């Protein structure tokens, strides 16, 4: 792939970086990133990856834009309320950068569908807000040997880590989902909108650095910040030999939905 004149101008601020250059920008343009969730985290990730020229962006989200989303989900605008989030996000991506091919999945991810979706991508972004999805994404990426960026936000706090095959995974840290109701969601506890932006842009930077193959990713490191006092810290984590999915005697060998929905009509129709 060689860059045309318009691309050279569009990506000139990348190209002058010695760690990117024309070669790195070509890698970005050839890159395929899947963004699971186009909410608080997925919105900034999608905007930055679109602007950066990531050639293929996959967007998965079953939801429609709601008024309460607009406080932080910056890819969605007031006239989008009621529109499927993947459609709203796709329109903005195309408006920012026609170089990008957008593939939308207006659905949740399930144990029986996720592997088929992630296999076509180089890097996965976890922008989901619930633990069933987070653990499913982790397991699918571990079993499918796909790198992914974990992101979590709550109130003024954020945390992120990048899984790469052979290294510590999300289950190494947390084992399994917390008991239902033990951890409040953003809709119950609140979230400073800018925290979603801070964390999402870190995840976008991880994806870009993965594609260009430069720098040290947040692998085996959990970055934690508190935006109320604006303090950052980093915890070095090691692969956990007791990890149920990547440890020495893994108990998880196939994907299962952690919390199969019992009263979801859409899911019942599928099965």
């Amino acid at each position: 792939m060689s860059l045309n004149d318009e691309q050279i101008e569009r990506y000139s601020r990348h190209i002058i970086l010695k760690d990117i250059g024309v070669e790195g920008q070509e890698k970005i343009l050839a890159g395929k990133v899947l963004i699971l969730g186009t909410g608080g985290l997925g919105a900034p990730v999608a905007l930055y990856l679109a602007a950066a020229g990531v050639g293929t962006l996959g967007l998965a989200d079953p939801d429609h834009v709601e008024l309460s989303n607009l406080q932080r989900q910056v890819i969605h605008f007031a006239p989008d309320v009621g529109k499927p989030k993947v459609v709203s996000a796709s329109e903005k991506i195309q408006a920012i950068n026609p170089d990008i091919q957008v593939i939308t999945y207006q659905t949740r991810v399930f144990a029986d569908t996720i592997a088929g979706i992630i296999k076509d991508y180089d890097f996965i972004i976890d922008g989901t807000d619930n633990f069933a999805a987070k653990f499913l994404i982790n397991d699918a990426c571990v079993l499918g040997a796909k790198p992914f960026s974990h992101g979590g936000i709550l109130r003024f706090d954020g945390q992120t880590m990048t899984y790469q095959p052979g290294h510590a995974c999300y289950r190494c840290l947390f084992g399994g989902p917390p008991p239902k109701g033990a951890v409040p969601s953003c809709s119950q506890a609140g979230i400073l909108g800018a925290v979603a932006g801070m964390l999402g842009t870190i995840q976008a930077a991880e994806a870009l650095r993965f594609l260009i193959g430069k720098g040290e990713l947040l692998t085996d490191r959990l970055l934690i910040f508190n935006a109320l006092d604006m303090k950052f810290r980093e915890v070095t984590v090691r692969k956990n030999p007791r990890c149920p999915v990547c440890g020495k005697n893994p108990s998880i060998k196939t994907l299962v939905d952690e919390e199969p929905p019992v009263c979801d009509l859409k899911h019942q129709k599928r099965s």
Partner: protein
Amino acid sequence: MNIKINGKVEAIKTTSLTVAELLRIAKVGNPEMVSVQLNGEFVSKENFDTTRLKHEDAVDFMYFMGGGARGRSVPGRELL
């Protein structure tokens, strides 16, 4: 004893302390919400009561955090 908690050294006035007791002192309401590393190794939740800390140990608490994909929670529709 001095224990480094989340990177910050804290003086704790006791000579005997388990991970579970430290969680209470540190006001971690529900131990189910936290993952604990002691000197870089994960401590299983079932060992919180029996794992004893010593002077100059380093403990890191990591909390579960969700994300921002959902606008509002709808029961039974919580996967992504």
